[in-house]
Every structure is written in C-alpha cells, then in structure tokens.
C-alpha cells in the first residue's frame, strides 16, 4: 500500500467533492486566463485600429503631399525676386513690373549654396502690342531653369520647359480666336516664330501671354542682359516659418533685391496639410487616451474578477478540505494509531488538494484550448501574454495555491491526537 494508491482510492470514493473542487479551480484558471485573453484581444483589436488609423493618416498626408507638390509645380510656393527699385504696387496692379536687374543675378544665386530654393527662373516681362494679331500681349521672356550648381546630380528636375529660340508659346485668347495651332508659323512684331505650344484656358493674364526665349525677348524689347524678376519655385515649405528662412537666405546673396511671395494658395495648402496632420495626430492621441482609459477600466474589472474568483475558489478548496478532514477523522485517527506519522498523514490529505489543482488547471487548459478561438478568437496558448514560462508557472502555482488553501484544515486534521478520536471511555 502506497500513499498514492490511498489518495487515489479516497478520491474515487469521494469523487463528488473532488470534482467540485476541481471545477472551482478550473473556473478560476479560466477566469484568470480569460481575463488576460480579453485584455490581449482588446489590445490586438485596438492595435489593429491604430494601425489602420496610422495607415489612413499616412494616406491622407501622402495625398496632401501630392496635392501640394502639384500645387507647387503649378503655382508653387513661389518667391518673386524683384529689383529694389521696383514699385510693388505696379506688380500688384498690373501683374508685372518694368524695373530691371542684371540677368547675372540668377547665376549668382544659382552658384551660391542656397538650400531653401529648388528652381530658379529668370524672366523679362512687358505688355506689348501685337500689330499682326491686333492684340495687346504680355510678352514673357523665359530662359528655362538655371541649374543650382552645388546640388550637381542631385538637383531637382526642371519644372518649366524653356522655350527654344524661334519658337513661341501662346495663351488661350491669343491662339483660340485666330485658330492658331501648334506647328503654325506666325509673325509677332515683325519676327517669324514657330508656334511651339498653345495653352488651355487658365482664366487669367496667362491667356493673353506669349512666351518666347529670354534672349529673343531681351532683343525685341531692347533690354539685353536684363531681367525683371526671378521666379523661385518649390521653396522648401514643410513648415510655415520656413518662409522667413527663404527670404533671409536670398537677401544674403542678392542684397539689392526685394522678395515677395505672390501666391498664397500653396501656403494655404501647406497650412491645410499641417492642420490635417495635427488633426489626425490629435485624433490618434485621443484614441490612445481612450484606449488606455478603457483598458485600465477593463484591466481593473478583470483583476477584481480574477482575484474574487480565485479567492472564492481557494476558500472553497479550504472548505472542501475541511469537510474532507471531518469526514475522514476516524480514518485519520486509525492511521495515526497504526503508526502513520504526521508528515505522511499531511501528505495524504494535501495530495487531494494538489490533485484538484492539477486536474482543475488541466481541465481549464483543455477548455481554453477548445473554446479560445470560439470565444476570444485567439489561440490562448500561443497568444495570451503568459509565454512558455508563464504557462509552466501557472501549472505549478495553481496546485501550490490549492495546497496552501488546504493547508490549515489539513494541518489541523493531521495534528489531531488519535486518542481524542478513538477513545472509548
């Protein structure tokens, strides 16, 4: 006869109380693991939402980025550099000025180490008559882009195609009325030009503008080596306060100039972009705050529930052990009288509680394995935040806790003097 067979036979004899104890353990383990699973499930769901939110933010910001880039290409975060003498009121009223500055300013700027500007376009502009076409035309001399020297191979691609010598590009009102198409030859102020491009309607002064090579326009207007302005495009505008930097950098290279930002759309877009970004960030922060708050509430609830269930289970185990000891008191007295020592008696009584712990944990794990996917949609063994050692710890600690709960009644029972139990006086 071994203690193990005695324990086993006793459990089989009083199986209902053993099953009740095992169930209590199983319920508390399921509650504990279930609570963790619920929390983890919540974390995963909110992480997924957060990921989606981040992706959406990135998508929106990318859309803004593309939009801004397009805007910058079309409208630009455009800096116009004018000679100091230019009356800006004229610019604002007519759209162009007549004061000139040396064309070499462009080269000076391009040869510097300017970093806030990506594209430099020298221009000579003047409103002229087109006698052959019977129209007033804003003649626009463009040279194409001046490459910024220090960027070398890394410099940005050209934004505006230069107009070749002998070619002319016409705004909508200039070609549409006269049924001029690309490839036609026209005479403009006594010079023959090949029409290189005809523009769509833009709804502004561009529609009565003719673009030609800068050197040709300089020659036509009698202003060789002169320009009215330099258009600086695609200025670095990631943040709003970079405008000051742009101005400051250009003024340090070309002190005899004045700089204005002629288009505010790009800024508005940049503001919108920054606004959208900060709005999304605020949404994200709010989401994170809400998530933390909800998680804390859930965690608090699950902690309280787990502790409550575990405490009730342990009290239940203690009660069952106490009942078991009361029920077996004659047996305990007899075993003690026969010579079974205190420690072995304690072992026999506690083994029952330990086995309840082992069986309860095992039962709970089987239940969790089978139902985890159905209830929490996760594989609890792989994904609950226990880890391998956590599971081992759980499997070991539950029987130990069960043993601890049974300790007092078991100790009291094993310590009872057999004579008290067996006395027949």
């Amino acid at each position, binding site marked *: 006869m071994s203690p193990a067979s005695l324990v086993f036979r006793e459990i089989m004899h009083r199986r209902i109380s053993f099953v009740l104890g095992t169930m209590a353990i199983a319920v508390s383990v399921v509650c504990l693991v279930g609570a963790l699973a619920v929390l983890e499930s919540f974390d995963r769901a909110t992480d997924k939402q957060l990921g989606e939110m981040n992706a959406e933010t990135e998508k929106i910001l990318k859309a803004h980025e593309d939009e801004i880039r397009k805007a910058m290409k079309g409208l630009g975060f455009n800096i116009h550099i004018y000679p100091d003498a230019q009356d800006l009121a004229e610019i604002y009223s007519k759209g162009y000025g007549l004061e000139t500055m040396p064309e070499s300013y462009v080269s000076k700027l391009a040869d510097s180490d300017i970093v806030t500007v990506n594209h430099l376009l020298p221009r000579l502009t003047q409103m002229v008559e087109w006698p052959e076409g019977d129209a007033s035309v804003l003649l626009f001399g463009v040279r194409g882009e001046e490459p910024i020297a220090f960027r070398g191979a890394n410099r940005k691609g050209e934004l505006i195609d230069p107009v070749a010598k002998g070619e002319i590009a016409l705004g909508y009102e200039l070609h549409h009325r006269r049924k001029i198409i690309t490839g036609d030859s026209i005479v403009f102020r006594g010079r023959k030009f090949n029409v290189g491009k005809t523009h769509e309607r833009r709804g502004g002064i561009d529609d009565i503008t003719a673009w030609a090579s800068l050197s040709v326009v300089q020659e036509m207007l009698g202003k060789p080596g002169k320009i009215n302005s330099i258009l600086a495009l695609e200025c670095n505008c990631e943040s709003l306060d970079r405008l000051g930097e742009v101005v400051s950098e250009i003024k340090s290279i070309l002190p005899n100039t004045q700089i204005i930002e002629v288009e505010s759309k790009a800024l508005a877009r940049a503001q919108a972009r920054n606004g959208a970004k900060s709005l999304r960030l605020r949404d994200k922060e709010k989401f994170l705050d809400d998530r933390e708050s909800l998680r804390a509430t859930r965690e608090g609830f699950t902690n309280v529930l787990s502790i409550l269930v575990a405490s009730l289970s342990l009290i239940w185990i203690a009660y069952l052990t106490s009942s078991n000891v009361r029920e077996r008191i004659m047996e305990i007295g*007899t075993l003690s009288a*026969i010579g079974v*020592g*205190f420690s072995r008696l304690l072992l026999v009584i506690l083994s029952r509680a330990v086995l309840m712990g082992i069986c309860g944990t095992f039962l709970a794990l089987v239940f969790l394995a089978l139902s985890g996917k159905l209830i929490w949609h996760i594989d609890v063994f792989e994904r609950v935040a226990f880890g391998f050692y956590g599971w081992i710890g759980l499997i070991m600690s539950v029987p130990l806790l069960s043993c601890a709960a049974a300790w007092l009644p078991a100790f009291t029972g094993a310590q009872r003097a057999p004579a008290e139990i067996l006395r*027949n006086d």
Partner: protein
Amino acid sequence: MTDSRAGNPVARASALRKIYGESPDPVVALDEVSLQVHAGEFLAVCGPSGCGKSTLLLTIGLLLRPDAGDLEIADQNIAELSPSRQSSFRAQNIGFVFQDFHLIPYLNVLENVLVPTLAQPLSDASARAEMLLEEMGLAARHDHLPSELSAGERQRTALVRALMLRPRLILADEPTGNLDRENADCVLNHLAHYSEVGGAVVMATHDEGAMMRAGRRVLMDKGRIVGSDDGGNKR
C-alpha cells in the same frame, strides 16, 4: 501453555497517572496504575464503562502521554522517544483492534490489511496478508469493501491488520463489543492463539465471556486497578 510471565515484560507501566480536564473538576482517568504484560500473555482489563480501561490501552499504545509515571514497551522507555519516533515505534511494536473496527471504507479487505505498510514497509506484505486472511477465513473476501462484510468479518479484518507488522503487543479495546457470540468467540480464539505463539495481548472488556478467555484479568474502577486474579497491584 508455558509460563508466560518469565523474562522481561513486553509492556511495563509504573504508577501511570492521567487526568482529563483542569481544576476545579479534573477527571482522574488513571490513578497510579502499574502493570506488566509479558510475551505470551493474554491479559484482560475489566471494569465498568468510564473506569479507565480505554485510557490505559491508549496510554500503553502511546496514543496518550501520561501525566506521571513510567512506561516501557519492548525495553524502550517511551518518555525518551520523540513524537515522530513514537509513531514508527508504535507501527513496529503495537497493533490495535477497536470495538468499531475502524476499517477504511473505500479500501477493500486486502488493502485495509495492507494499510500498516504505509507506516512501515514490509517486504512480504502481500504474501503475509494473503496468509493471514486465509487463516482468518477471509480469503474469499479480500476484494470486498468493509460495507460488504459482516461485523465478524470486519473485526477479523481489523485483527489481520493489527497482526500485519508482527507486533509484540496487541491492544484490543472491546473487540467483541459489536459482535455476536459466535463471532466474538472467533476473534477471542485468534487473540488467544496470538498470545500462545509468543505475542502479548491486552484486551479491555466488560464482557464476562471475553474476560474468561484471557489468561489473566485485572479489574479497574475509577482509574485504579482494584483487583487482579494473580493478586498483583491490588490496592
């Protein structure tokens, strides 16, 4: 039968005193009890209920610590043994038979008689159990639960359990108290046989028939030995 009282006694009690409760109403369960039991002796302790018979058996059986007096079992002064050592000493030297049998209800007959091996492993436990069950006429019952046995069979099972580890002393507390005459005789025969083959038996009883089966009788009253058919310890 040889003179059973030659040589050292298996149990020697000197002036044992045991009091239950405290002042002002203590109950003196044993009052200066002295007794010797030798190997081969079958001693009956007689007396009315509450006279201290069971207390004397429990004290000799090391289940109660006397308040005063000396006790030696198998030449061992019991006062020198620690409580844990007393358990193993009890397992090696003393067997108990109780009026209510105290069999373990969920173990069958064979398992019940093997229970003492929990305290003291025995190499030939199964063979000895089978042999004793055969001797007691329980061979056909060895896989029966106690609830499936008659009272006599239960007491014989309890007797086999007491004999399993070959103790030097059997303490039987009212072993025939719950038995009919036929079963009582059977149990008494086995106890007598055990003493005849060299064991010592102390039986507490108030059953006159049982008393007469013993080789020697002492009479107790109010915790004292008040009579003995060998004239010893009479006060």
